[in-house]
């Protein structure tokens, strides 16, 4: 390096003195000594041309051998100012580009690529390179020929890409440039394990692909190369070839492709037919798609034949006949090929559909076995669903229009077949047909609705039935009227008639099931506002009847009616029309029913006061309110509030309606009074559902209450109450504890300073004899989102990252508490810890766990099954993601896990086996020593008495 530098220095000096320009020499020396920067020079002295030459040489030398990065920028400036040309730069670089030192070559190439990239705009204006192109390209080709260093290659590819992209004159060197780059194809470079330069195989592949696919001028060389590489045995090379083919076809026209089409097709076909790898298959398919797309949009010469036509004929000839053998293996690959080709453009889809659909229709009639027919229907479905490319214009007719009649006939006849799988396939095909805009006629839709109704109500097979419901849901969105007139009345009939018939008699099991099914269908069908208004009254009516006390309605059914209603609410969430409808009709009606029911009390058992029904009803309100507009919401709130406060609260022993207040962003009037009522209720009521609801409600309000004195005084009051209520002799410890939990959660979510006090309280309860394990489970409640209150859907005040914050605050306290806790109470701490860990995001877990690992390992040996299980389920994802962190604890971990495989609890056995399986992801040299021991130990659970355990054991042992 030093010699090289001296040589170059000599060169510079000779050059400079030869020109007799001492000024330039001085300048260069100046630059070298770092006396002035080059930019200053350029600006102040305005060097002569000869000086420029010396300057360039100096710059290049400093950049290449001196490793001074700033010189590249200076060179760029020089080129931009026109002080030196790129050609001169290449000449000067010559010696470094052919140097035997890879680093020197690398620097040379780097400089060139920076200059080309940064000066490209000014260069293309000057047309400088286009004119001098051929020489430049030749120089470049010579320079990178035989390059082996991946870093330099990456840069070289970028330059080559630049050359192609800027459309420089390649002259007679097209083939040379192709040769010099394509010799690296396909790339089989794998970075060394501790790669210092961070060059990935992927990067190289992509940049080489950009070069090769960059210009149609390479087509005549590239396509044969690709065909040859496709024959290779190496999977990655096939994959790369197919992807490159897909990339280059996008830039080619039919002129380039024409000659190679038959052999390209046969290569692609072979890959799709024979491959075992999904990657190769999908690469093959996308290559086919881009070939077809390219042929579809090429401009034709008047005398040449339509190459798309020819190509598709080829495809059809090779694939079509496989469709006639629906139980042989090649049906599906052929189908995929045809569908891919068809999806490339409208023209292609028209041609292929015209050939395939009649064939499939005919085949369906020729084959009588259900399995074969099912395959045919599924194939057909794929063709119906085709997205016909982006080139569809308004006027284009759907290629399927001509086959509407026979297609419908086929699908409807398949719907009446006896095989459930065939029926399911037919239902899906029907959906596909129905979603094609403008394909089916009104009568077809009516018929479809009838068929679906029949399947929904009468079909025994659950799979078909649920497919039919799904289909009804998606078709109803597009054709609401047909379903409103055809399906809804039938379902209503089913629900209402059952109610009338069975007045006073216990319902038969089958009828119950039928009614539940109808209810479910009603809710799935309600995908359009107009349908919602048809279906909801039916359900409300059903609830009404159940309220009137005819015993025909089982509890189960009422619950499912509520669920259906809730589902409808979810579906209708986005529609304003339905929102208003719910608000005006549904909510008052439901409220009325529930209040009436609880008022009646005693007497006949009324399903509407059962806890389960009420809990099913709450989400209806929540969802409905969550999407109401503020104004509507305010109205509803004041309505409900007056009911709660001004009515006698004692008459509603299972009152849960206030829950919905928390949903609202609006100011709730009378907050203070409400809060104190709730606090009282939550601390004193003995009915568990009521006091929990009251606590939740209280928490929800506290969470939203604007900060300030009022809030502080409320909180002070309740903290005091909690503290006194938790005394060991207090009668209502359970209730107060629940309140504590919910209030802590409410404050934790909004980062309220008081939350620490409350959680500390909770921590201290961990050693409590009575509440210890409940408190530990309480941590799960704190960390997880609850479904009904205090979540974002209810507009609660939830800060970002509150979990992480809580974790960092609490974990040290937990560890500390664990260490000083008496032996028999330690498990509560471990349980609490694993609850917190379980809900942390994965990234945080990974960073935090190593420090907690000893504690977790301790937890594994804790006798409580719950703790074992939650610790294992916390470890498992970690083992899957980053097993490395376990390496140092492997020995302990293994013996603990192996011990747990003999645990009496089935779930613990299963999860520990899963963890053991995950351990196989550790590097081989780490696990190999333990392998024989584990294999021996895993032989035991193979004979476990539980099948589920055996299954995990088989999987784990198989991995080892």
């Amino acid at each position, binding site marked *: 390096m030093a010699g090289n530098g001296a040589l170059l220095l000599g060169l510079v000096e000779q050059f400079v003195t030869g020109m007799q320009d001492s000024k330039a020499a001085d300048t260069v020396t100046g630059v070298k000594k770092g006396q002035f920067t080059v930019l200053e020079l350029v600006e102040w002295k305005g060097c002569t041309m000869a000086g420029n030459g010396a300057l360039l040489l100096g710059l290049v030398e400093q950049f290449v051998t001196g490793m001074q990065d700033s010189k590249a920028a200076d060179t760029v400036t020089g080129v931009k100012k026109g002080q030196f040309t790129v050609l001169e730069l290449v000449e000067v670089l010559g010696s470094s580009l052919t140097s035997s030192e890879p680093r020197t070559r690398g620097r040379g190439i780097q400089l060139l690529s920076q200059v080309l990239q940064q000066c490209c705009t000014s260069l293309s204006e000057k047309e400088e390179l286009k004119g001098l192109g051929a020489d430049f390209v030749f120089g470049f080709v010579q320079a990178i020929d035989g390059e082996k260093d991946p870093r330099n290659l990456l840069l070289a590819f970028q330059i080559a890409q630049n050359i192609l992209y800027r459309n420089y004159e390649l002259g007679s060197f097209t083939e040379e440039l192709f040769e010099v780059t394509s010799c690296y194809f396909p790339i089989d470079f794998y970075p060394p394990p501790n790669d210092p330069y961070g060059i990935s195989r992927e990067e190289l592949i992509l940049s080489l692909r950009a070069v090769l696919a960059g210009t149609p001028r390479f087509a005549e060389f590239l396509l044969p190369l690709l065909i040859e590489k*496709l*024959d*290779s*045995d190496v999977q990655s090379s*096939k994959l790369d070839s197919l992807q490159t083919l897909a990339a280059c076809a996008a830039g080619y026209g039919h002129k380039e492709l024409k000659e190679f089409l038959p052999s390209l097709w046969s290569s692609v076909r*072979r890959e799709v*037919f*024979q*491959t*075992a*790898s999904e990657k190769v298959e999908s690469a093959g398919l996308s290559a086919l798609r881009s070939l077809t797309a390219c042929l579809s949009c090429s401009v034709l010469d008047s005398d040449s034949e339509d190459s798309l036509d020819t190509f598709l004929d080829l495809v059809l000839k090779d694939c079509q006949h*496989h469709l006639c*053998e629906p*139980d*042989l*293996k*090649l*049906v599906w690959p052929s189908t995929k090929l045809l569908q891919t080709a068809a999806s490339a453009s409208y023209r292609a889809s028209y041609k292929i559909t015209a050939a395939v659909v009649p064939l499939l229709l005919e085949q369906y009639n020729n084959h009588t076995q259900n*399995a074969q027919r099912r395959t045919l229907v599924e194939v057909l479905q794929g063709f119906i669903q085709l997205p016909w490319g982006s080139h569809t214009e308004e006027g284009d007719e759907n290629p399927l229009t001509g086959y509407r009649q026979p297609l419908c006939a086929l699908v409807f006849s398949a719907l009446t077949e006896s095989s459930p799988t065939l029926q399911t396939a037919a239902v899906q095909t029907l959906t596909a047909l129905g979603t094609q805009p403008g394909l089916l006629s009104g009568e077809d839709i009516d018929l479809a609705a009838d068929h679906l109704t029949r399947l929904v109500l009468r079909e025994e097979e659950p799979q078909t039935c649920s497919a039919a419901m799904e289909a009804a849901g998606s078709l109803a969105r597009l054709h609401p009227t047909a379903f409103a007139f055809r399906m809804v009345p039938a379902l209503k009939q089913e629900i209402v008639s059952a109610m009338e018939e069975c007045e006073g008699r216990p319902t038969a099991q089958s009828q119950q099931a039928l009614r539940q099914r109808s209810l479910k269908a009603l809710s799935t069908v309600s995908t359009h506002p107009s349908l919602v208004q048809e279906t909801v009254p039916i359900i409300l009516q059903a609830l009404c009847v159940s309220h009137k006390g005819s015993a025909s309605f089982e509890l189960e059914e009422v619950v499912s009616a509520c669920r259906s209603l809730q589902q409808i609410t979810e579906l209708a969430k986005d529609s304003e029309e339905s929102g208003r409808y719910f608000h005006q009709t549904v909510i008052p009606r439901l409220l009325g029913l529930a209040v009436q029911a609880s008022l009646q009390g005693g007497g006949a058992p009324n399903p509407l006061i059962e806890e389960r029904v009420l809990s099913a009803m709450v989400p209806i309100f929540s969802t409905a309110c969550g999407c109401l507009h503020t104004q509507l919401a305010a109205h509803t709130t004041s309505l409900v509030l007056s009911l709660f406060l001004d009515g006698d609260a004692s008459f509603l022993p299972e009152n849960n309606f206030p829950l919905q207040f928390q949903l609202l962003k609006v100011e709730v009037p009378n907050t203070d009074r409400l809060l104190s009522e709730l606090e009282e209720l939550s601390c004193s009521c003995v009915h568990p559902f009521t006091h929990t609801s009251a606590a939740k409600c209280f928490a929800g309000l506290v969470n939203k209450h604007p900060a300030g004195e009022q809030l502080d005084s409320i909180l002070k009051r309740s903290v005091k109450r909690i503290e006194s209520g938790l005394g060991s002799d207090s009668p209502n410890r359970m209730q107060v504890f629940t309140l504590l939990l919910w209030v802590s959660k409410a404050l934790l979510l909004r980062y309220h300073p008081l939350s620490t006090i409350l959680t500390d309280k909770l921590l201290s309860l961990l050693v409590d004899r009575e509440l210890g394990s409940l408190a530990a489970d309480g941590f799960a409640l704190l960390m997880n989102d609850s479904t009904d209150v205090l979540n974002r859907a209810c507009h609660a005040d939830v800060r970002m990252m509150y979990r992480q914050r809580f974790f960092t605050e609490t974990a040290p306290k937990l560890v500390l508490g664990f260490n000083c806790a008496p032996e028999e109470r330690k498990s509560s701490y471990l349980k609490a810890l694993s609850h917190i860990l379980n809900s942390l995001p994965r990234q945080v877990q990974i960073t935090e766990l190593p420090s907690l690992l000893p504690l977790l390992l301790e937890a594994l040996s804790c006798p409580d099954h719950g703790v074992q299980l939650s610790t294992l389920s916390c470890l498992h994802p970690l083992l899957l993601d980053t097993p490395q962190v376990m390496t140092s604890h492997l020995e302990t971990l293994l013996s603990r896990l192996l011990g747990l495989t003999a645990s*009496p*609890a*089935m779930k613990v056995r299963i999860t520990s086996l899963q963890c053991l399986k995950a351990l196989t992801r550790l590097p081989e040299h780490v696990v190999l020593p333990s392998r024989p021991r584990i294999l021996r130990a895993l*032989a035991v659970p*193979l*004979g476990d*008495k*539980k*099948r*589920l355990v*055996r*299954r995990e054991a*088989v999987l784990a*042992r*198989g991995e080892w």
Partner: protein
Amino acid sequence: MEGGTRLENANPLIFQRSGERQLTTEEEDEEFADPIDDREIFDLIRTINDPEHPLSLEELNVVEQVRVRVSDDDSTVSVEFTPTIPHCSMATLIGLSIKVKLLRSLPERFKIDVHITPGAHASEQAVNKQLGDKERVAAALENSHLLEVVNQCLSSRT
């Protein structure tokens, strides 16, 4: 398999896969002991990959549940498999894969018998003899190349 060369049976019949075993309440019950039954053995071997095709033995109908017999009490398992064509050169390899899978997955007490469905293969007896011979199986598994191929058949599909 070499690119471009023809497969022995390029377009075989495909059979439907049976679904996952339905979970019963008894299986979730801690106390109840589930016996090892035909279906469980079948579940073990049905997912084995065919050496030639990207398909499982079940899809090629090489193994069927009716051809699996197990007796938990006597600790015996007997599996018959049917190569897709009578001259299939892979028959021994398929048999070996089934055998290895069962050896790895069953408690040691089981005696495992794997053989070709009578009349389904040209050199039925020779293959059966190889598969029945403990020492030959052990020797085959010492061969690292063979072991790799077997492991490939047994690996779960990604």
